[in-house]
Protein backbone atom coordinates (compact mmCIF):
# COMPACT_ATOMS: atom_id res chain seq x y z
CA UNK A 1 0.00 0.00 0.00
CA UNK A 2 1.01 3.58 -0.48
CA UNK A 3 2.39 5.00 2.70
CA UNK A 4 1.70 8.61 3.51
CA UNK A 5 5.28 9.33 4.25
CA UNK A 6 5.45 12.88 5.58
CA UNK A 7 7.28 12.62 8.90
CA UNK A 8 4.95 13.51 11.71
CA UNK A 9 7.38 15.74 13.56
CA UNK A 10 7.52 18.24 10.68
CA UNK A 11 3.82 18.86 10.64
CA UNK A 12 3.31 19.17 14.37
CA UNK A 13 5.26 21.85 16.18
CA UNK A 14 3.75 21.14 19.60
CA UNK A 15 4.27 17.36 19.63
CA UNK A 16 0.83 15.72 19.94
CA UNK A 17 0.28 12.49 21.86
CA UNK A 18 0.70 9.09 20.20
CA UNK A 19 -3.04 8.53 19.77
CA UNK A 20 -3.54 11.80 17.92
CA UNK A 21 -0.44 11.20 15.81
CA UNK A 22 -1.77 7.79 14.84
CA UNK A 23 -5.12 9.31 13.94
CA UNK A 24 -3.45 12.01 11.87
CA UNK A 25 -1.49 9.52 9.76
CA UNK A 26 -4.56 7.35 9.39
CA UNK A 27 -6.81 10.17 8.16
CA UNK A 28 -4.17 11.32 5.68
CA UNK A 29 -4.42 7.92 3.96
CA UNK A 30 -7.32 8.38 1.54
CA UNK A 31 -8.00 4.69 1.00
CA UNK A 32 -8.11 4.01 4.72
CA UNK A 33 -10.48 6.93 5.23
CA UNK A 34 -12.68 5.66 2.39
CA UNK A 35 -12.66 2.23 4.01
CA UNK A 36 -13.75 3.67 7.34
CA UNK A 37 -16.53 5.66 5.70
CA UNK A 38 -17.76 2.64 3.71
CA UNK A 39 -17.78 0.56 6.88
CA UNK A 40 -19.70 3.27 8.74
CA UNK A 41 -22.17 3.42 5.87
CA UNK A 42 -22.68 -0.35 5.89
CA UNK A 43 -23.15 -0.43 9.66
CA UNK A 44 -25.73 2.36 9.45
CA UNK A 45 -27.46 0.57 6.58
CA UNK A 46 -27.68 -2.77 8.40
CA UNK A 47 -28.51 -1.60 11.90
CA UNK A 48 -30.52 1.60 11.31
CA UNK A 49 -31.87 0.84 7.82
CA UNK A 50 -34.73 -1.34 9.06
CA UNK A 51 -36.13 1.73 10.87
CA UNK A 52 -36.68 3.43 7.52
CA UNK A 53 -37.46 0.34 5.47
CA UNK A 54 -39.14 -2.17 7.83
CA UNK A 55 -39.75 -5.62 6.33
CA UNK A 56 -40.82 -9.07 7.49
CA UNK A 57 -37.80 -11.36 7.23
CA UNK A 58 -39.30 -14.33 9.08
CA UNK A 59 -42.52 -15.24 7.27
CA UNK A 60 -42.46 -16.16 3.62
CA UNK A 61 -44.90 -14.55 1.16
CA UNK A 62 -45.17 -16.59 -2.01
CA UNK A 63 -47.55 -14.10 -3.64
CA UNK A 64 -44.60 -11.71 -3.76
CA UNK A 65 -41.98 -14.26 -4.85
CA UNK A 66 -39.29 -13.58 -7.44
CA UNK A 67 -40.24 -9.98 -8.25
CA UNK A 68 -37.78 -7.83 -10.17
CA UNK A 69 -36.58 -4.57 -8.56
CA UNK A 70 -39.16 -1.76 -8.53
CA UNK A 71 -42.19 -0.40 -6.69
CA UNK A 72 -42.40 -1.43 -3.05
CA UNK A 73 -39.32 -3.62 -3.41
CA UNK A 74 -36.40 -1.43 -4.57
CA UNK A 75 -34.15 -4.49 -4.93
CA UNK A 76 -36.85 -7.02 -5.82
CA UNK A 77 -37.82 -10.09 -3.79
CA UNK A 78 -36.40 -13.57 -3.27
CA UNK A 79 -37.91 -16.86 -4.39
CA UNK A 80 -39.70 -17.05 -1.02
CA UNK A 81 -41.05 -13.50 -1.23
CA UNK A 82 -38.63 -11.78 1.19
CA UNK A 83 -37.95 -8.16 0.31
CA UNK A 84 -34.32 -8.16 -0.81
CA UNK A 85 -33.36 -4.71 0.45
CA UNK A 86 -34.65 -5.62 3.90
CA UNK A 87 -32.95 -9.00 3.73
CA UNK A 88 -29.68 -7.33 2.83
CA UNK A 89 -29.89 -5.34 6.10
CA UNK A 90 -31.02 -8.36 8.11
CA UNK A 91 -28.39 -10.67 6.64
CA UNK A 92 -25.69 -8.03 6.93
CA UNK A 93 -26.25 -7.89 10.66
CA UNK A 94 -25.40 -11.58 10.98
CA UNK A 95 -22.37 -11.26 8.69
CA UNK A 96 -21.02 -8.22 10.52
CA UNK A 97 -21.78 -9.40 14.06
CA UNK A 98 -20.33 -12.87 13.56
CA UNK A 99 -17.38 -11.53 11.56
CA UNK A 100 -16.50 -8.89 14.14
CA UNK A 101 -16.89 -11.19 17.12
CA UNK A 102 -15.04 -14.11 15.51
CA UNK A 103 -12.24 -11.90 14.20
CA UNK A 104 -11.72 -10.27 17.60
CA UNK A 105 -11.89 -13.57 19.47
CA UNK A 106 -9.42 -15.16 17.05
CA UNK A 107 -7.05 -12.24 17.51
CA UNK A 108 -7.33 -12.47 21.30
CA UNK A 109 -6.68 -16.23 21.38
CA UNK A 110 -3.88 -16.06 18.83
CA UNK A 111 -2.22 -13.11 20.53
CA UNK A 112 -2.06 -14.73 23.94
CA UNK A 113 -0.89 -18.06 22.48
CA UNK A 114 1.74 -16.40 20.32
CA UNK A 115 2.99 -14.13 23.09
CA UNK A 116 3.34 -17.05 25.49
CA UNK A 117 5.14 -19.19 22.89
CA UNK A 118 7.48 -16.37 21.93
CA UNK A 119 8.21 -15.46 25.54
CA UNK A 120 8.93 -19.04 26.60
CA UNK A 121 11.12 -19.76 23.58
CA UNK A 122 13.09 -23.00 23.26
CA UNK A 123 11.27 -26.30 23.36
CA UNK A 124 7.91 -24.97 24.49
CA UNK A 125 7.95 -22.49 21.62
CA UNK A 126 8.97 -25.17 19.11
CA UNK A 127 6.21 -27.52 20.29
CA UNK A 128 3.54 -24.80 20.29
CA UNK A 129 4.53 -23.60 16.85
CA UNK A 130 4.57 -27.10 15.31
CA UNK A 131 0.95 -27.42 16.46
CA UNK A 132 0.00 -24.24 14.61
CA UNK A 133 2.01 -25.39 11.57
CA UNK A 134 0.03 -28.62 11.44
CA UNK A 135 -3.32 -26.88 11.84
CA UNK A 136 -2.36 -24.33 9.19
CA UNK A 137 -1.43 -27.15 6.81
CA UNK A 138 -5.06 -28.23 6.69
CA UNK A 139 -6.86 -25.73 4.45
CA UNK A 140 -8.97 -23.52 6.75
CA UNK A 141 -12.15 -24.01 4.79
CA UNK A 142 -11.89 -27.81 5.13
CA UNK A 143 -11.45 -27.57 8.91
CA UNK A 144 -14.36 -25.14 9.13
CA UNK A 145 -16.64 -27.39 7.11
CA UNK A 146 -15.79 -30.48 9.19
CA UNK A 147 -16.45 -28.67 12.46
CA UNK A 148 -19.64 -27.08 11.11
CA UNK A 149 -20.82 -30.53 9.98
CA UNK A 150 -20.26 -31.96 13.48
CA UNK A 151 -22.16 -29.22 15.33
CA UNK A 152 -25.15 -27.31 13.98
CA UNK A 153 -24.20 -23.64 14.09
CA UNK A 154 -26.09 -20.92 15.87
CA UNK A 155 -24.65 -17.41 16.03
CA UNK A 156 -22.44 -18.02 19.11
CA UNK A 157 -21.40 -21.48 17.86
CA UNK A 158 -20.46 -20.02 14.48
CA UNK A 159 -18.32 -17.39 16.20
CA UNK A 160 -16.53 -20.12 18.16
CA UNK A 161 -16.04 -22.33 15.10
CA UNK A 162 -14.49 -19.55 13.04
CA UNK A 163 -12.33 -18.28 15.91
CA UNK A 164 -11.15 -21.84 16.60
CA UNK A 165 -9.68 -21.98 13.10
CA UNK A 166 -8.68 -18.34 12.55
CA UNK A 167 -6.49 -17.80 15.65
CA UNK A 168 -3.57 -19.56 13.99
CA UNK A 169 -2.18 -16.75 11.87
CA UNK A 170 -2.19 -14.05 14.58
CA UNK A 171 -0.53 -16.61 16.86
CA UNK A 172 2.34 -16.96 14.44
CA UNK A 173 2.63 -13.24 13.90
CA UNK A 174 2.65 -12.24 17.58
CA UNK A 175 5.03 -15.07 18.42
CA UNK A 176 7.59 -13.50 16.09
CA UNK A 177 7.10 -10.15 17.77
CA UNK A 178 7.38 -11.67 21.26
CA UNK A 179 10.53 -13.53 20.29
CA UNK A 180 12.13 -10.23 19.34
CA UNK A 181 10.91 -8.48 22.50
CA UNK A 182 11.93 -11.11 25.04
CA UNK A 183 15.63 -10.33 24.80
CA UNK A 184 15.14 -6.59 25.35
CA UNK A 185 16.87 -5.01 28.32
CA UNK A 186 13.72 -3.94 30.10
CA UNK A 187 12.57 -7.55 30.21
CA UNK A 188 15.91 -8.58 31.71
CA UNK A 189 15.51 -5.80 34.24
CA UNK A 190 11.99 -6.93 35.08
CA UNK A 191 13.22 -10.49 35.61
CA UNK A 192 16.05 -9.31 37.86
CA UNK A 193 13.49 -7.47 39.95
CA UNK A 194 11.62 -10.73 40.36
CA UNK A 195 8.87 -10.33 37.74
CA UNK A 196 7.29 -13.56 36.55
CA UNK A 197 6.21 -14.91 33.19
CA UNK A 198 2.64 -13.66 33.19
CA UNK A 199 3.79 -10.16 34.09
CA UNK A 200 6.27 -10.26 31.22
CA UNK A 201 3.60 -11.38 28.75
CA UNK A 202 0.74 -9.12 29.84
CA UNK A 203 2.55 -6.02 31.05
CA UNK A 204 5.47 -5.85 28.65
CA UNK A 205 5.18 -8.00 25.55
CA UNK A 206 1.51 -7.46 24.70
CA UNK A 207 1.49 -3.67 25.17
CA UNK A 208 4.56 -3.40 22.95
CA UNK A 209 2.98 -5.57 20.28
CA UNK A 210 -0.35 -3.73 20.40
CA UNK A 211 0.11 -2.07 17.00
CA UNK A 212 0.64 -5.40 15.30
CA UNK A 213 -2.31 -6.85 17.20
CA UNK A 214 -4.74 -4.10 16.19
CA UNK A 215 -3.66 -4.14 12.54
CA UNK A 216 -3.97 -7.91 12.45
CA UNK A 217 -7.41 -7.74 14.07
CA UNK A 218 -8.80 -5.74 11.14
CA UNK A 219 -7.50 -8.31 8.66
CA UNK A 220 -8.88 -11.08 10.88
CA UNK A 221 -12.32 -9.48 10.83
CA UNK A 222 -12.22 -9.26 7.03
CA UNK A 223 -11.25 -12.93 6.85
CA UNK A 224 -13.90 -13.94 9.38
CA UNK A 225 -16.60 -12.19 7.34
CA UNK A 226 -15.41 -14.14 4.31
CA UNK A 227 -15.42 -17.40 6.30
CA UNK A 228 -19.01 -16.78 7.39
CA UNK A 229 -19.92 -16.19 3.77
CA UNK A 230 -18.10 -19.31 2.58
CA UNK A 231 -19.70 -21.53 5.21
CA UNK A 232 -23.16 -20.16 4.46
CA UNK A 233 -22.59 -20.50 0.77
CA UNK A 234 -21.73 -24.16 1.31
CA UNK A 235 -24.96 -24.52 3.29
CA UNK A 236 -23.32 -25.10 6.66
CA UNK A 237 -24.17 -21.91 8.49
CA UNK A 238 -27.08 -20.91 10.70
CA UNK A 239 -30.20 -22.61 9.27
CA UNK A 240 -33.09 -20.49 7.77
CA UNK A 241 -35.04 -18.30 8.31
CA UNK A 242 -31.79 -16.73 9.54
CA UNK A 243 -29.82 -15.23 6.70
CA UNK A 244 -26.49 -13.66 5.97
CA UNK A 245 -24.89 -12.36 2.80
CA UNK A 246 -23.32 -15.74 1.99
CA UNK A 247 -26.53 -17.73 2.37
CA UNK A 248 -28.37 -15.11 0.28
CA UNK A 249 -25.93 -15.78 -2.56
CA UNK A 250 -26.27 -19.50 -2.07
CA UNK A 251 -30.07 -19.18 -2.27
CA UNK A 252 -29.74 -17.11 -5.43
CA UNK A 253 -27.57 -19.60 -7.32
CA UNK A 254 -30.54 -21.65 -8.57
CA UNK A 255 -32.16 -18.55 -10.01
CA UNK A 256 -29.18 -17.48 -12.08
CA UNK A 257 -30.57 -19.86 -14.70
CA UNK A 258 -33.69 -17.71 -15.04
CA UNK A 259 -31.67 -14.51 -14.88
CA UNK A 260 -32.63 -13.25 -11.38
CA UNK A 261 -29.48 -11.12 -11.19
CA UNK A 262 -30.83 -9.03 -8.31
CA UNK A 263 -30.43 -12.02 -5.98
CA UNK A 264 -26.70 -12.14 -6.72
CA UNK A 265 -25.28 -8.65 -7.05
CA UNK A 266 -26.47 -6.87 -3.87
CA UNK A 267 -25.20 -9.44 -1.33
CA UNK A 268 -22.06 -10.12 -3.37
CA UNK A 269 -21.19 -6.45 -3.66
CA UNK A 270 -21.92 -5.97 0.04
CA UNK A 271 -19.38 -8.70 0.92
CA UNK A 272 -16.75 -7.22 -1.40
CA UNK A 273 -17.32 -3.73 0.05
CA UNK A 274 -17.05 -4.75 3.67
CA UNK A 275 -14.02 -6.98 3.14
CA UNK A 276 -12.23 -4.32 1.07
CA UNK A 277 -13.14 -1.68 3.67
CA UNK A 278 -11.56 -3.67 6.51
CA UNK A 279 -8.46 -4.35 4.41
CA UNK A 280 -8.05 -0.65 3.59
CA UNK A 281 -8.55 0.27 7.24
CA UNK A 282 -5.96 -2.33 8.20
CA UNK A 283 -3.47 -0.95 5.70
CA UNK A 284 -4.08 2.58 6.96
CA UNK A 285 -3.61 1.49 10.56
CA UNK A 286 -0.42 -0.31 9.64
CA UNK A 287 1.00 2.93 8.29
CA UNK A 288 -0.34 4.80 11.28
CA UNK A 289 1.26 2.47 13.80
CA UNK A 290 4.24 2.19 11.52
CA UNK A 291 4.41 -1.54 11.93
CA UNK A 292 5.71 -3.62 9.10
CA UNK A 293 4.11 -7.00 8.91
CA UNK A 294 3.20 -9.54 6.32
CA UNK A 295 -0.46 -9.68 5.45
CA UNK A 296 -1.15 -13.39 5.18
Amino acid at each position, binding site marked *: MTATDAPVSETAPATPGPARRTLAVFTRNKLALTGALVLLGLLTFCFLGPLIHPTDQIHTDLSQAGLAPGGNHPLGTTDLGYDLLGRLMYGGRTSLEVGLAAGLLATLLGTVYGAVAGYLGGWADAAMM*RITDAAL*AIPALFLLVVVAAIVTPSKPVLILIIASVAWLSPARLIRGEALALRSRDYLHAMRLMGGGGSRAVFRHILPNAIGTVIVNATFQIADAILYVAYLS*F*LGLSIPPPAADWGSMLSAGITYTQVGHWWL*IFPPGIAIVLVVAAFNFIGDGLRDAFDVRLEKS
Partner: protein
Amino acid sequence: MIRFLTKRIAQAATVLLLVSVIVFVLLHMLPGGPARAILGVQATPEAIAHFNHQQGYDRSLPQQYVMYLGRLLSGDLGESYKLNQTVASLLGERLPKTALLAGLALTLAALLAVPLGILQAVRRGKAADYLLTGAAFLAYATPVFFLGLVLILVFSQQLQLLPAEAPQADTLGGILTDLPALVLPVVTAALGIIAAFSRYTRSAVLDNLSEEYVRTARAKGQSNARIMARHVLRNALIPLATLLGLHLPTLFSGTLVVESMFNYPGMGLLFWNAAQGSDFPVLLGVTLVAGVATVLGSLLTDIAYAVLDPRIRSVT
Protein backbone atom coordinates in the same frame (compact mmCIF):
# COMPACT_ATOMS: atom_id res chain seq x y z
CA MET B 1 22.54 -29.28 1.20
CA ILE B 2 22.16 -32.69 2.89
CA ARG B 3 21.84 -31.01 6.27
CA PHE B 4 19.21 -28.65 4.94
CA LEU B 5 17.30 -31.56 3.40
CA THR B 6 17.33 -33.72 6.54
CA LYS B 7 16.27 -30.83 8.71
CA ARG B 8 13.47 -29.81 6.39
CA ILE B 9 12.21 -33.38 5.92
CA ALA B 10 12.25 -34.05 9.67
CA GLN B 11 10.21 -30.89 10.18
CA ALA B 12 7.70 -31.94 7.51
CA ALA B 13 7.41 -35.39 9.10
CA THR B 14 6.64 -33.85 12.50
CA VAL B 15 3.97 -31.63 10.99
CA LEU B 16 2.46 -34.59 9.13
CA LEU B 17 2.28 -36.55 12.37
CA LEU B 18 0.53 -33.62 14.05
CA VAL B 19 -1.91 -33.32 11.14
CA SER B 20 -2.87 -36.94 11.78
CA VAL B 21 -3.31 -36.10 15.48
CA ILE B 22 -5.68 -33.26 14.59
CA VAL B 23 -7.77 -35.50 12.34
CA PHE B 24 -7.75 -38.17 15.08
CA VAL B 25 -9.07 -35.60 17.56
CA LEU B 26 -11.77 -34.56 15.09
CA LEU B 27 -12.69 -38.23 14.68
CA HIS B 28 -13.27 -38.44 18.43
CA MET B 29 -15.32 -35.24 18.41
CA LEU B 30 -17.88 -36.93 16.15
CA PRO B 31 -21.27 -37.56 17.72
CA GLY B 32 -21.02 -41.16 18.95
CA GLY B 33 -17.31 -41.42 18.17
CA PRO B 34 -15.69 -43.59 15.51
CA ALA B 35 -18.01 -46.58 16.09
CA ARG B 36 -21.00 -44.51 15.04
CA ALA B 37 -18.94 -43.20 12.15
CA ILE B 38 -18.25 -46.68 10.84
CA LEU B 39 -21.33 -48.72 11.82
CA GLY B 40 -23.77 -45.99 10.87
CA VAL B 41 -26.46 -44.03 12.63
CA GLN B 42 -28.73 -46.99 13.27
CA ALA B 43 -26.28 -49.20 15.16
CA THR B 44 -27.52 -50.48 18.55
CA PRO B 45 -25.59 -49.67 21.71
CA GLU B 46 -24.64 -53.38 21.94
CA ALA B 47 -23.23 -53.38 18.42
CA ILE B 48 -21.29 -50.22 19.22
CA ALA B 49 -19.88 -51.70 22.43
CA HIS B 50 -18.92 -54.87 20.57
CA PHE B 51 -17.31 -52.91 17.76
CA ASN B 52 -15.46 -50.67 20.22
CA HIS B 53 -14.03 -53.71 21.99
CA GLN B 54 -13.17 -55.53 18.77
CA GLN B 55 -11.46 -52.50 17.22
CA GLY B 56 -9.73 -51.52 20.43
CA TYR B 57 -11.71 -48.30 20.90
CA ASP B 58 -12.13 -49.18 24.59
CA ARG B 59 -8.40 -48.83 25.11
CA SER B 60 -6.57 -45.69 26.13
CA LEU B 61 -6.41 -42.80 23.66
CA PRO B 62 -2.66 -43.02 23.01
CA GLN B 63 -3.01 -46.74 22.21
CA GLN B 64 -5.91 -45.95 19.92
CA TYR B 65 -3.90 -43.29 18.17
CA VAL B 66 -1.09 -45.72 17.45
CA MET B 67 -3.61 -48.16 15.95
CA TYR B 68 -5.17 -45.36 13.92
CA LEU B 69 -1.78 -44.36 12.59
CA GLY B 70 -1.07 -47.98 11.66
CA ARG B 71 -4.29 -48.13 9.64
CA LEU B 72 -3.49 -44.83 7.92
CA LEU B 73 -0.04 -46.04 6.94
CA SER B 74 -1.52 -49.15 5.36
CA GLY B 75 -3.79 -46.87 3.31
CA ASP B 76 -7.00 -47.60 5.23
CA LEU B 77 -9.05 -44.41 5.52
CA GLY B 78 -12.32 -46.08 6.41
CA GLU B 79 -15.48 -46.52 4.40
CA SER B 80 -18.05 -43.98 3.20
CA TYR B 81 -21.47 -44.10 4.92
CA LYS B 82 -23.28 -43.28 1.76
CA LEU B 83 -21.34 -44.38 -1.29
CA ASN B 84 -20.60 -48.01 -0.45
CA GLN B 85 -16.96 -47.52 -1.30
CA THR B 86 -13.78 -47.12 0.69
CA VAL B 87 -12.61 -43.58 1.21
CA ALA B 88 -9.26 -44.49 -0.31
CA SER B 89 -10.81 -45.68 -3.58
CA LEU B 90 -13.08 -42.59 -3.73
CA LEU B 91 -10.04 -40.37 -3.29
CA GLY B 92 -8.19 -42.35 -5.94
CA GLU B 93 -10.96 -41.49 -8.40
CA ARG B 94 -11.42 -37.86 -7.40
CA LEU B 95 -7.97 -36.56 -6.48
CA PRO B 96 -6.52 -36.62 -10.04
CA LYS B 97 -9.49 -34.55 -11.25
CA THR B 98 -8.94 -31.91 -8.59
CA ALA B 99 -5.22 -31.94 -9.40
CA LEU B 100 -6.11 -31.30 -13.04
CA LEU B 101 -8.40 -28.37 -12.19
CA ALA B 102 -5.89 -26.89 -9.75
CA GLY B 103 -3.02 -27.41 -12.18
CA LEU B 104 -4.87 -25.64 -15.00
CA ALA B 105 -5.84 -22.77 -12.70
CA LEU B 106 -2.25 -22.39 -11.47
CA THR B 107 -0.87 -22.46 -15.01
CA LEU B 108 -3.35 -19.84 -16.19
CA ALA B 109 -2.62 -17.72 -13.11
CA ALA B 110 1.15 -17.85 -13.65
CA LEU B 111 0.83 -17.12 -17.38
CA LEU B 112 -1.27 -14.01 -16.73
CA ALA B 113 0.14 -12.81 -13.42
CA VAL B 114 3.81 -12.61 -14.39
CA PRO B 115 3.30 -10.34 -17.44
CA LEU B 116 0.79 -8.23 -15.49
CA GLY B 117 3.24 -7.85 -12.62
CA ILE B 118 6.06 -6.86 -14.99
CA LEU B 119 3.79 -4.35 -16.71
CA GLN B 120 2.93 -2.78 -13.35
CA ALA B 121 6.56 -2.61 -12.29
CA VAL B 122 7.67 -1.04 -15.56
CA ARG B 123 4.82 1.47 -15.51
CA ARG B 124 5.05 2.10 -11.80
CA GLY B 125 2.97 5.07 -10.69
CA LYS B 126 1.22 5.35 -14.06
CA ALA B 127 -2.44 4.73 -14.84
CA ALA B 128 -1.97 1.04 -15.74
CA ASP B 129 -0.27 0.38 -12.40
CA TYR B 130 -3.04 2.06 -10.38
CA LEU B 131 -5.74 0.33 -12.38
CA LEU B 132 -4.22 -3.13 -11.90
CA THR B 133 -3.47 -2.47 -8.23
CA GLY B 134 -7.11 -1.53 -7.72
CA ALA B 135 -8.22 -4.64 -9.58
CA ALA B 136 -5.98 -6.83 -7.43
CA PHE B 137 -7.42 -5.41 -4.21
CA LEU B 138 -10.92 -5.92 -5.54
CA ALA B 139 -10.04 -9.51 -6.43
CA TYR B 140 -8.70 -10.09 -2.88
CA ALA B 141 -12.00 -8.98 -1.41
CA THR B 142 -14.18 -10.95 -3.82
CA PRO B 143 -15.25 -14.37 -2.57
CA VAL B 144 -14.65 -17.12 -5.15
CA PHE B 145 -18.35 -18.02 -5.24
CA PHE B 146 -19.49 -14.47 -5.99
CA LEU B 147 -17.03 -14.25 -8.85
CA GLY B 148 -18.23 -17.62 -10.15
CA LEU B 149 -21.87 -16.52 -10.00
CA VAL B 150 -21.13 -13.29 -11.87
CA LEU B 151 -19.24 -15.22 -14.55
CA ILE B 152 -22.14 -17.65 -14.88
CA LEU B 153 -24.64 -14.79 -15.16
CA VAL B 154 -22.60 -12.99 -17.80
CA PHE B 155 -21.04 -15.72 -19.93
CA SER B 156 -23.54 -18.50 -19.55
CA GLN B 157 -26.84 -16.72 -18.95
CA GLN B 158 -26.56 -13.43 -20.87
CA LEU B 159 -24.08 -14.11 -23.66
CA GLN B 160 -24.71 -17.88 -23.80
CA LEU B 161 -21.08 -18.44 -24.70
CA LEU B 162 -20.02 -21.00 -22.14
CA PRO B 163 -21.76 -23.77 -20.22
CA ALA B 164 -22.43 -23.21 -16.48
CA GLU B 165 -21.62 -26.84 -15.67
CA ALA B 166 -18.15 -28.35 -15.61
CA PRO B 167 -17.33 -31.40 -17.76
CA GLN B 168 -18.92 -34.54 -16.32
CA ALA B 169 -16.67 -37.16 -17.94
CA ASP B 170 -15.25 -40.02 -15.87
CA THR B 171 -11.70 -39.83 -17.16
CA LEU B 172 -9.19 -37.00 -17.27
CA GLY B 173 -9.03 -37.34 -21.04
CA GLY B 174 -12.79 -37.00 -21.25
CA ILE B 175 -12.71 -33.87 -19.12
CA LEU B 176 -10.05 -32.32 -21.33
CA THR B 177 -12.07 -32.93 -24.51
CA ASP B 178 -14.83 -30.67 -23.16
CA LEU B 179 -12.74 -27.49 -23.06
CA PRO B 180 -15.52 -24.86 -23.23
CA ALA B 181 -17.06 -26.33 -20.07
CA LEU B 182 -13.69 -26.07 -18.30
CA VAL B 183 -13.27 -22.34 -18.94
CA LEU B 184 -15.51 -20.90 -16.21
CA PRO B 185 -14.35 -23.25 -13.41
CA VAL B 186 -10.67 -22.72 -14.22
CA VAL B 187 -10.99 -18.92 -14.53
CA THR B 188 -12.96 -18.74 -11.29
CA ALA B 189 -10.34 -20.77 -9.44
CA ALA B 190 -7.49 -18.74 -10.96
CA LEU B 191 -8.55 -15.16 -10.29
CA GLY B 192 -7.57 -14.86 -6.64
CA ILE B 193 -4.19 -16.45 -7.38
CA ILE B 194 -3.64 -14.04 -10.29
CA ALA B 195 -4.13 -11.12 -7.90
CA ALA B 196 -1.66 -12.50 -5.37
CA PHE B 197 1.00 -13.54 -7.91
CA SER B 198 0.86 -10.31 -9.89
CA ARG B 199 1.30 -8.26 -6.70
CA TYR B 200 4.26 -10.42 -5.85
CA THR B 201 5.83 -10.18 -9.31
CA ARG B 202 5.40 -6.39 -9.27
CA SER B 203 7.31 -5.92 -6.03
CA ALA B 204 9.95 -8.54 -6.86
CA VAL B 205 10.66 -6.93 -10.24
CA LEU B 206 10.80 -3.48 -8.63
CA ASP B 207 13.28 -4.74 -6.02
CA ASN B 208 15.50 -6.27 -8.67
CA LEU B 209 15.36 -3.26 -10.98
CA SER B 210 17.19 -1.23 -8.36
CA GLU B 211 20.00 -3.79 -8.03
CA GLU B 212 23.49 -2.93 -9.08
CA TYR B 213 23.78 -5.70 -11.64
CA VAL B 214 20.91 -4.07 -13.51
CA ARG B 215 22.77 -0.78 -13.53
CA THR B 216 25.89 -2.57 -14.79
CA ALA B 217 23.90 -4.24 -17.56
CA ARG B 218 22.42 -0.85 -18.52
CA ALA B 219 25.90 0.66 -18.55
CA LYS B 220 27.00 -2.08 -20.92
CA GLY B 221 24.24 -0.88 -23.23
CA GLN B 222 21.96 -3.89 -23.03
CA SER B 223 18.38 -3.42 -24.16
CA ASN B 224 15.57 -3.20 -21.63
CA ALA B 225 13.99 -6.42 -22.84
CA ARG B 226 17.26 -8.29 -22.45
CA ILE B 227 17.85 -6.90 -18.97
CA MET B 228 14.35 -7.92 -17.97
CA ALA B 229 14.68 -11.46 -19.31
CA ARG B 230 18.30 -12.18 -18.39
CA HIS B 231 18.69 -10.43 -15.06
CA VAL B 232 15.48 -9.29 -13.45
CA LEU B 233 13.07 -12.11 -14.15
CA ARG B 234 15.55 -14.85 -13.34
CA ASN B 235 16.00 -13.48 -9.87
CA ALA B 236 12.44 -12.37 -9.34
CA LEU B 237 10.74 -15.60 -10.35
CA ILE B 238 12.64 -18.11 -8.22
CA PRO B 239 10.76 -17.11 -5.04
CA LEU B 240 7.51 -17.45 -6.97
CA ALA B 241 8.04 -21.21 -6.57
CA THR B 242 7.80 -20.81 -2.79
CA LEU B 243 4.72 -18.69 -3.20
CA LEU B 244 3.14 -21.59 -5.07
CA GLY B 245 3.71 -23.79 -2.03
CA LEU B 246 2.22 -21.20 0.30
CA HIS B 247 -0.86 -20.95 -1.88
CA LEU B 248 -1.71 -24.64 -1.86
CA PRO B 249 -4.23 -24.38 1.01
CA THR B 250 -5.94 -21.43 -0.69
CA LEU B 251 -5.99 -23.37 -3.91
CA PHE B 252 -7.61 -26.37 -2.21
CA SER B 253 -10.23 -24.18 -0.55
CA GLY B 254 -10.87 -22.55 -3.91
CA THR B 255 -11.41 -25.86 -5.68
CA LEU B 256 -13.79 -26.87 -2.90
CA VAL B 257 -16.04 -23.92 -3.74
CA VAL B 258 -15.54 -24.05 -7.49
CA GLU B 259 -16.25 -27.77 -7.70
CA SER B 260 -19.43 -27.47 -5.67
CA MET B 261 -20.60 -24.50 -7.79
CA PHE B 262 -19.87 -25.97 -11.19
CA ASN B 263 -20.57 -29.56 -10.22
CA TYR B 264 -17.05 -30.64 -11.16
CA PRO B 265 -16.57 -34.27 -10.10
CA GLY B 266 -13.39 -33.82 -8.02
CA MET B 267 -12.34 -34.10 -4.39
CA GLY B 268 -13.97 -30.79 -3.45
CA LEU B 269 -17.39 -31.88 -4.67
CA LEU B 270 -16.94 -35.21 -2.89
CA PHE B 271 -16.12 -33.29 0.29
CA TRP B 272 -19.05 -30.91 -0.10
CA ASN B 273 -21.53 -33.72 -0.68
CA ALA B 274 -20.08 -35.54 2.34
CA ALA B 275 -20.62 -32.40 4.45
CA GLN B 276 -24.26 -32.18 3.33
CA GLY B 277 -24.84 -35.85 4.17
CA SER B 278 -22.70 -36.01 7.34
CA ASP B 279 -20.50 -38.63 5.67
CA PHE B 280 -17.74 -38.26 8.27
CA PRO B 281 -15.25 -40.90 7.07
CA VAL B 282 -15.14 -39.11 3.70
CA LEU B 283 -14.94 -35.65 5.34
CA LEU B 284 -12.02 -36.65 7.54
CA GLY B 285 -10.31 -38.62 4.77
CA VAL B 286 -10.37 -35.63 2.43
CA THR B 287 -9.25 -33.29 5.24
CA LEU B 288 -6.30 -35.55 5.96
CA VAL B 289 -5.34 -35.80 2.30
CA ALA B 290 -5.60 -32.01 1.84
CA GLY B 291 -3.34 -31.51 4.87
CA VAL B 292 -0.82 -34.08 3.72
CA ALA B 293 -0.79 -32.65 0.19
CA THR B 294 -0.15 -29.17 1.57
CA VAL B 295 2.75 -30.31 3.73
CA LEU B 296 4.33 -32.31 0.91
CA GLY B 297 3.73 -29.48 -1.55
CA SER B 298 5.48 -26.92 0.60
CA LEU B 299 8.31 -29.37 1.28
CA LEU B 300 8.82 -29.90 -2.45
CA THR B 301 8.75 -26.18 -3.24
CA ASP B 302 11.26 -25.51 -0.45
CA ILE B 303 13.58 -28.16 -1.87
CA ALA B 304 13.15 -26.80 -5.39
CA TYR B 305 13.91 -23.34 -4.05
CA ALA B 306 17.07 -24.55 -2.35
CA VAL B 307 18.22 -26.27 -5.52
CA LEU B 308 17.59 -23.15 -7.60
CA ASP B 309 19.00 -20.64 -5.16
CA PRO B 310 22.11 -21.74 -3.23
CA ARG B 311 21.85 -18.80 -0.80
CA ILE B 312 18.83 -20.38 0.92
CA ARG B 313 20.71 -23.47 2.06
CA SER B 314 23.26 -21.55 4.02
CA VAL B 315 20.63 -19.33 5.68
CA THR B 316 18.42 -22.06 7.07
